[in-house]
């Protein structure tokens, strides 16, 4: 099969690799019909996250059709249409049982590495370094899904892939960000980052009762989408002297009640601290650039909530903890506890409450993935979200569909060679 493989900094290549196989009884194999590139994939593309190896298959936002199941999978059958969450959860451990699905004790094959960096290991993820399990990802024609009796969400036929694909990560993540804010009716929610996750956070903030949503970014097409689709008031931080002053002004001196960081470790800014981060990171003296984190801490009203879904991987400098502590802020953060949100959000999509496909700006064949990564990273061509379709040849034409080669374990269907 064709798969998108990491080959070094800014070097993604589409290679022909063996088709995946059932390795454990609770596995399933999914033939992928749509998959996407995530903002957090860019941290891997830019080589900011350790323990990635040349040849690793990336991708953690995917959906498709079940083509084989292991003996231990009773709830799925061949032919089922599923969306697969990016986190891998066993369903049995202390954390899964508490619905802290992204903290599963049992899915990280290399828990010892994560423990060295973090003290304890979170769940394994698809396509996101060996520190988080080393699992092959879903920017490919097929994927092996561990604990398939827990993760994959069945979706009905009759609704396009593009409307449900984002249940794999970014829609639940934006919703988780807003949910973590504990929004009280009428609250003002400020959201840093108008990428796809930020856009879903904007949508979700309204769903959860916000009275006002203010979105912050610098790319015109993203600010435009936040206004037209998100009905948000927008701040272009490159056009104002101080985001903090503008937010204070807009809120009559109170400050936003809830602040969402949907940017994370590769924050860009124009202020002195942002330049400090860039310099230190270039000299390898700081691993993450927490410009948005600092700004959100300073901007948030007293007693407010900071909700962090932007990905961080290492260490940050010069965080105004004094401001955070003395203003009595609440911090909530994490990788999304996917299994809490996938079904309820699917319902909202099926009801017509929201059309997630609004974030898609590019639809490519898998062989164009390297171009997709570069365009997404450099924010060229008005790029907001790139979807890859394994059976497109890049000009919107369906190719001859790939037939899967390999052994037939479990109750897999027959395929010709």
């Amino acid at each position, binding site marked *: 099969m064709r798969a998108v493989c990491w080959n070094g900094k800014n070097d993604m290549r589409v290679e022909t690799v063996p088709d995946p196989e059932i*390795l454990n009884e609770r596995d399933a194999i999914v033939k992928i019909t749509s998959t996407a590139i995530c903002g957090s994939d860019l941290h891997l593309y830019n080589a900011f996250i350790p323990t990635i*190896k040349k040849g690793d298959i990336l991708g953690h936002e995917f959906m498709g059709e079940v083509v084989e199941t292991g003996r231990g999978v009773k709830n799925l059958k061949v032919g089922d249409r599923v969306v697969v969450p990016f986190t891998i959860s066993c369903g049995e451990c202390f954390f899964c049982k508490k619905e802290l699905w992204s903290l599963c004790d049992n899915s990280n094959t290399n828990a010892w590495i994560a423990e060295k960096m973090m003290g304890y290991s979170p769940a394994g993820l698809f396509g996101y370094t060996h520190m988080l399990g080393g699992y092959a990802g879903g920017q490919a024609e097929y994927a092996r899904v561990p604990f398939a009796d827990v993760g994959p969400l069945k979706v009905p036929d009759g609704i396009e892939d593009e409307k449900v694909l984002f249940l794999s990560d970014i829609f639940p993540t934006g919703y988780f960000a807003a949910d973590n804010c504990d929004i009280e009716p009428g609250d003002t929610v400020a959201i840093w980052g108008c990428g796809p996750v930020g856009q879903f956070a904007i949508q979700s903030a309204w769903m959860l009762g916000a009275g006002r949503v203010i979105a912050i970014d610098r790319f015109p097409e993203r600010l435009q989408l936040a206004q037209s689709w998100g009905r948000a008031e927008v701040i272009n931080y490159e056009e104002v002297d101080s985001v903090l002053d503008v937010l204070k002004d807009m809120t009559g001196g109170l400050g936003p009640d809830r602040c969402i960081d949907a940017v994370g470790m590769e924050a860009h800014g124009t202020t002195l601290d942002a330049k400090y981060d860039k310099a230190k990171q270039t000299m390898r003296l700081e691993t993450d650039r927490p410009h948005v984190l600092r700004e959100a801490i300073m901007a948030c009203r007293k007693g407010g909530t900071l909700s962090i879904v932007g990905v961080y991987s290492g260490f940050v400098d010069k965080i105004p903890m004094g401001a955070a502590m003395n203003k009595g802020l609440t911090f909530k953060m994490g990788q999304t506890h996917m299994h809490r949100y996938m079904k309820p959000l699917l319902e909202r999509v099926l009801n017509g409450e929201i059309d997630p496909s609004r974030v898609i700006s590019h639809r490519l064949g898998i062989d164009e993935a390297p171009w997709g990564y570069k365009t997404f990273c450099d924010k060229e061509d008005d790029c907001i979200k790139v979807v890859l379709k394994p059976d497109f040849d890049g000009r919107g034409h369906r190719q001859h569909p790939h037939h899967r080669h390999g052994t037939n374990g479990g109750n897999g269907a027959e395929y010709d060679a």
Partner: protein
Amino acid sequence: MRDDVTSSSYQRSTGSFDQSLTDYNVESEDTGMIYRVGQAAMIVSGVALVALAARRATGHRLVPQSLAQRASDAVAPAPIETAITIGKPAAELYAFWRRFENLPQFMRHLDEVTDLGDGRSHWVGKSPLGFKVEWDAETVEDRPNQLISWRSLPGAQIHNAGTVFFDEAAAGRGTIVRVSMELASANPVGQAVGKVLAPITERQVTEDLRRFKQLMETGEIPTIDGQSHGTRSFIGAHVHNPL
């Protein structure tokens, strides 16, 4: 005093972290550099550096006194102490462990264990460096659902003795499985080797317990062996997870 302990422990973990991540960072030289230079920066800013080899924690002795004697005679490496909480009743975990034939399922250094009856058993495994080792052992104490204590019999290449405890965890969280063991080699070369390899061996036992938890809670041990991947670098193709 507390600060010294904290900072030196931090230094130790940062040091070994660097080494263990070397395998994965060959391609991504920049990110490997982050941690090496970042660590140097912290040294410069005045944090005390404690050498990794010099820092060994010594724990409580939980093995029988006679064995402790034998172990100290052989100038043993520090005892191994490790524990994990498993969300299953002690009876279930004890029963699985007591069938020694099950142990190779989650103990990677073991190939085969045979219960010979009369409290004796035969063990076949691999040393941390990969050499085949075999020994006979006897069960010193066996308290159902509570603990199993064993020791290797005279003539073993590597003396080992220990106890696995099954203690109820608080708040209905299951069972704390604790392993306390000691290794000692019969010959001087083995002693020296044993001392150096002890840190790896303790980590092996910790990983064995993690696999035991995975097996007991989920019915399987997560793996990526045999999964798809693209072209590896030379080192990437040959270096595998040693645990």
